[in-house]
Structures are given as structure tokens and as C-alpha cells.
């Protein structure tokens, strides 16, 4: 049984305290959710609503119904009604926050971005989970991931699935020129230039450079490759403007001035960069795990069968490549009247049963270590899955409720560097000011 009565009594007594501590002050704030009814999954029929976006299977179908029916086999009394989340992350957040903040009991469980815990915890939109779980519960997930889900000592979301960035390349073109997949960013630029000079590809390397979250992800991992970070681990100090930041931005800018990356990268989101790669115009592509499925499918790609994937390399004298941690989690709505069933469902998805379904069928990675490092991963048709166990992850600096402003303070000046409107130094100075203002809660 996932929940024992004893652990729940302990829980009930202690639950209000951390919640009040998390919200910080005031009498009115001390009124947390009533956790006395987080008993075992209730007997008798109960319905919970799950707000979730599409979970892509390897065959292109949607895994949400599969997961729900597997859960219902274990808990036949619990009906899970699926609410389709809007496909755009920001729209999903706007709808959820308005709904949950106004005290709506629906959805009971919602799928949310990995970048949200601090902001959602700060605004009482998600339930703190540690009081509901046995000690040591989080050890079964990657450390970097659990850290990203933690705000002021409490974890606020159940890991659901992971995404990581990889480097995709044109195997056929490298082979034709007798070149190997690059071992460093510098080598990548040289390799791409050779292939471009021979007229075999318009672009050398495409990635995501428009003003949005994706650019922050690109920058976060490249800065980590250069041995630096954007914020200190506790998200209190700005560290972006050091030599690592300078190296990362100079590298990106040089890619464009040297013609390896097209100037249009300043308008690229994932799909644009993927289009450039699948249409055969680019030698290299930085993208998430799902890109393999699209780029290696003859129906959607002109380069199917001609591509390879490696872990992101690092800088020449650096400590190797990092990959940005992305993914989705399940949060509990503190206003849910069915917290018991909601908790059981979120745990089911995060633990062995749900995760093994993901490992066998999903186009995304299961965060549960036993599955992430399991045999199903190594056997997958997507070679990126087998690479995943050795990927070194880096989280975006999401551990502050001001993260949207932090991200904006990064992607806005970097985008201007890419379009040539600002020098690297100017951008770092500007970013430093904006990041500090963001952390003070004074950014706009």
C-alpha cells in the first residue's frame, strides 16, 4: 500500500507547519489545505480530474489513456477524467494559475513544467509533498531533478517524464568528407564549415535563438559547458557575467558571424530548427529527445536513415558537455477535495508501474532511475535513449519564484547579441542588472 494510516496521522499533525513556513507570514496564510482527509485511497467511487498535455508514445499515439487505464486496474473505484491542457506551456500556466488561485477544486492533479515549482510553491498553487511521503522517497530520482523540484526544503511535484538536449548530425555528410562526429564545440564549427564549403549544406549548425524559454535552455547548458552558471545554486547571486558566460555568448555569436549558423536562428523555436535539419539544409542540430523520432521518419524527414546522435560535446579544454534538463511533473492542487485519490494517482505515474509503461512505450525518458538505467532504454530504436544514462544534466536557474523574469533577463540580451545589436560585454552587463532586479522582484 502506498500510504499507511500511521504515516498519515504523523503527516496531518505536521503538515500545516511547513506550509505556513513556505508562505512566510500572516494569520490568513496559516490556513493550509485540510490534510486530514488524505487517507488511504477512499473506498467507494470517486472521480479525479487530471490536467495533462499529450504524452507521446514511440508509435506516435497518446499514452495518457494507457496510463489512466493501468491505474484503474489497480484502483477500480477511482475514475480519472482527463482534461486536455493547452499545447503552449505559457497558456497552460496562465489558465492553471487563474483557476487554482481562485480556489477551484479542479483539476485535482495537473501536469506542469519542471520550471514551475518555486513560483507555484511561492503562490500556494501546489501542495508540498514531503509530509505525505516516506523519508528518502526522492532518492529514486536523479539528484539534479529533485533539486529542481525543491523550493525552501520542500519538494512540490512528482517527476513524470524527462527531456534532455542532444546533438543530431548528418552521418552521410560527415562520412562523405571523412569526418568524425565532433568531440568539442570548436571542432563542430570547423567540421560544419568544411561541409558547407563543399556545398553539401546551407547551414552548419541550427539551434533555438528567439526570445523565449528555449534560448535560456540553450544558454544554460553552454554556460555550464564552459564551467559556469547563470545563478548561484541557491538562486540568490548572479554568476552569469563571468568568463564562462562570455565564452558561451562569444561562441554563439561567432557561429553566426562565421556563417555556421544562419542569422535567422534569432527567430527559431524548436520546430524551425528541426525543419531546417529534416529538410536537409543543416549538418548539425541541437534539439530535444523527441527530434530523433521526427528526423528519422521518412514520412516527415528527407534525411531519415542518414542521421546520427551524440551527447552534446563540451568546449575543447572544458569538463565535457552538459545537457539542459527539461520535462514535466505532476502537481497536486491544494484545493482538491480528493487528495487521497489524487496522491495515489500522481504516485502511480511517478513510481515503478507508471514509469515502466513510459520506459516501454514513450518517446520521452522516465525519470525513475531504475527505469532510466534499465534495459528498455538500451534496447530502444532511438539511440538517444541509450545515451541518456550517461548524460550530465544541468538545470535552468528555476529555483526562484521570479524565474520567468530570470529567464527573460537571459534570453532578451542574448537574442540581441545574436542579431548583432549588442556586444557580448554589453549583453552580460545588461543581463547582470536585469537578473539582479529580477531576484529583487523589481524586474519588468
Amino acid at each position, binding site marked *: 500500500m502506498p500510504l499507511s494510516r500511521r504515516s498519515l496521522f504523523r503527516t496531518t499533525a505536521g503538515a500545516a507547519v511547513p*506550509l505556513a513556513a513556505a*508562505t512566510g*507570514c*500572516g494569520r*490568513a*496564510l496559516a*490556513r*493550509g*489545505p485540510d490534510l486530514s482527509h488524505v487517507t488511504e485511497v477512499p473506498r467507494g467511487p470517486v472521480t479525479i480530474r487530471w490536467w495533462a498535455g499529450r504524452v507521446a508514445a514511440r508509435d506516435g499515439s497518446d499514452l495518457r489513456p494507457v496510463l489512466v487505464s493501468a491505474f484503474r486496474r489497480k484502483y477500480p473505484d477511482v475514475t480519472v477524467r482527463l482534461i486536455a491542457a493547452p499545447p503552449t506551456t*505559457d497558456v497552460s*500556466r*496562465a489558465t492553471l*494559475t*487563474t483557476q487554482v*488561485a*481562485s*480556489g477551484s477544486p479542479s483539476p485535482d492533479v495537473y501536469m506542469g513544467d519542471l520550471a514551475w515549482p518555486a*513560483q507555484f510553491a*511561492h*503562490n*500556494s*498553487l501546489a501542495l508540498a509533498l514531503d509530509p505525505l511521503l516516506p523519508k528518502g522517497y526522492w532518492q529514486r530520482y536523479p539528484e539534479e531533478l529533485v533539486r529542481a523540484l525543491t523550493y525552501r526544503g520542500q519538494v512540490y511535484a512528482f517527476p513524470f517524464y524527462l527531456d534532455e538536449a542532444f546533438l543530431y548530425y548528418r552521418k552521410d555528410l560527415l562520412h562523405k568528407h571523412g569526418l568524425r562526429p565532433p568531440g568539442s564545440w570548436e571542432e563542430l564549427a570547423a567540421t560544419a564549415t568544411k561541409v558547407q564549403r563543399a556545398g553539401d549544406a546551407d547551414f552548419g549548425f541550427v539551434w533555438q535563438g*528567439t*526570445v*523565449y524559454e528555449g534560448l535560456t535552455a540553450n544558454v544554460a547548458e553552454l554556460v555550464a559547458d564552459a564551467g559556469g552558471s547563470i545563478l548561484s545554486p541557491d538562486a540568490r547571486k548572479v554568476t552569469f557575467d563571468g568568463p564562462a558566460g562570455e565564452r558561451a555568448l562569444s561562441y554563439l555569436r561567432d557561429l553566426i558571424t562565421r556563417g555556421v549558423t*544562419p*542569422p*535567422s536562428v*534569432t*527567430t527559431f523555436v524548436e520546430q*524551425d530548427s528541426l*525543419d*531546417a535539419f529534416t529538410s536537409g*539544409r543543416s549538418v548539425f542540430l541541437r534539439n530535444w529527445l523527441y527530434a530523433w523520432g521526427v528526423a528519422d521518419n521518412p514520412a516527415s524527414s528527407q534525411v531519415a536513415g542518414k542521421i546520427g546522435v551524440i551527447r552534446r560535446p563540451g568546449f575543447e579544454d572544458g569538463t565535457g558537455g552538459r545537457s539542459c534538463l527539461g520535462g514535466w511533473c505532476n502537481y497536486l492542487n*491544494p*484545493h482538491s477535495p480528493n487528495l487521497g485519490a489524487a496522491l495515489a494517482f500522481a504516485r502511480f505515474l511517478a513510481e515503478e508501474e507508471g514509469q515502466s509503461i513510459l520506459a516501454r512505450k514513450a518517446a520521452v525518458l522516465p525519470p525513475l532511475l531504475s527505469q532510466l538505467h534499465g534495459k528498455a532504454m538500451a534496447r530502444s530504436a532511438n539511440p538517444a535513449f541509450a545515451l541518456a544514462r550517461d548524460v550530465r544534466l544541468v538545470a535552468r536557474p528555476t529555483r526562484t519564484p*521570479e524565474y*520567468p*523574469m530570470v529567464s*527573460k533577463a537571459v534570453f*532578451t*540580451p542574448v*537574442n*540581441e547579441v545574436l*542579431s548583432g*545589436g*549588442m556586444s557580448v560585454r554589453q549583453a552580460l552587463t545588461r543581463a547582470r542588472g536585469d537578473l539582479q532586479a529580477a531576484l529583487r*522582484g*523589481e*524586474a*519588468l
Partner: protein
Amino acid sequence: MTAPRPTGLARRRARIGWLYTTPALVVIALVTIFPILYSVVLSFSKVRFTFGGLHVEEWTLGNYTTMLASPAWLEALLFTVGYTLVTVAVEIALGIAVAVLLDRLEAGRGWILALLLIPWSLITVVSAQLWDFLYDATFGAVTWLFGLVMDQPPVILGTPVPAITGMAVADIWKTTPFVAVIILAGLVRIPQERYEAAEVDGAGAWTTFWNVVLPALRPVVSVAVLFRVLQAFGIFDLPFVLTQGGPGTATQSLAVLGYKTLFQNLDIGMGAAIATSTGALVIVGCLLCLRMFRNQVDEGGAA
């Protein structure tokens, strides 16, 4: 003399009148006045969502001082004002030209008008998506056209000036027909005798246009300007679809800034401050327009 005292009947009628309009007034108060007041009040607070609902942490002028000191707000303000002035000016000029042309048309005015109104009838989010395809840096038709005459076509939505221009073009394309229709309504009301009188006085086409047609059009032009300024100042959908406010913050309008502050940052107080100040600016702008309008009607009447 004092006003005549209302008779009993008139008073009773007034009372019944109030009685009948009360439901409507209550609805207006609830859906219009209350939200406005609520957002003005919130703009002076620092609030946070809590389990029990919105919690005011303090009453403060901080939102406004932070906003006024913020380069992001200033940039958004400059963009919004500049964009409004330029697009409205071009739309009015083009709208007058189109209206004059339509006014001269003998046959086919009806269906040409219908054709012209197609851009206006499209939902902006949809037309913005179409423009997005046209401007696409890899396979956009406009980019391709530039490529024919330039070595290196600009990345339209990724470079500040082309992005702003492209957005203005999309806006002008959509709203010029609207302006033209309003102005056409004014044109057809100019009596034929005025044209004839101008002709008798020996005025050429240009002189007639400047001294007869344009002055007579002033009231409708003012109405068109008023409508357009109101809409252009709140521009949201075009940047939201085309650029998300980029490149950098080159196309971040006040409305986009407010949206991001409210729904991405969950900064209710600051979002309310942006909304309130934008509303105040629009009201001032419209009052100025109305003042102009009134003066010009007086002038027109005196002339």
C-alpha cells in the same frame, strides 16, 4: 427664472424609468465599473496568491515607482506610442485615398468594397499567422522576394526595424479598409453643389480636395482616428503571434508587457499598475482626440 417644478406625473415617470434601468445599471456596474476599480485598487498593492485567496502583503506605491524607473516599461511605452502614431497616420492617409477612389467608382463599388473588407473581417490572430508564414526567414514569400534583389535578405522578424515595419504593414493591411469605409460614409454626404461651386470658382482637382473635401471630412476623420488610436494603443495579438515582443524587446507593447507580468510572472500588483496606467494614457489620448474633433466641428460650422 428657476426651472419649472416637475409635475407629479413626470416624477412618477422618472421613478419608473429608473426602476426599469436599474437592472441594466447593476450589470454595467458589475461587469465594467467593478473590475476597473478593483484593478486600480490592486495596482497600489503587493499581493500574493495564498491558499485562502489573494493576500495583500502591503499597500504601496512601489509598483508605480518600479514601473516608471524600468527601462522595459519605457521601451514598451515608446514602442506603443510610436507604433500608434505611425500606423494610424498611414492608415488615415491610405484610407482617404481608397475612399476617394471608391467614391468616384460608378459601377462595382459594392463588390470592391466587400473585397476590401476581407482583411478587416479576418481575426487578427489568424491573419497574423498568415503574415508569419510570409515573413518566415527560411521559406517565407516576402523573404524570397527580398532575396531576389539582395544578397542577404533580412531576417524580417529577427531584426528590430524590419520586425516593426513588418508588423506595421500587417496592421495597415488589416485596418485601412475599416478607415476607408468610415471616410467613404463622410464623402458621400458632401453635397454635389460644393464640387460644382468649386469648379465654377476655377479650382483644380488638388485645390478642390484640399480646400473643399478635406475640411468637410474632418469630423469623420476624427472618429476614425479615435477608433484606431484606441485599438492601436492596445496592440497585443500581432506581437503575440509574430514576435512574442522580440527581437530583444523591440516589439513589446504595453499590452504584451502587462500580459507577461500578470500571467507569466504572476505579479498581480505590477500587472494592474501597467493596465491602469495604459488605460489612463488611452483616456488622455482619446480626450485630446475628442477636443480636436470638437474644435474642428466648430471650425467647420463657422467656415
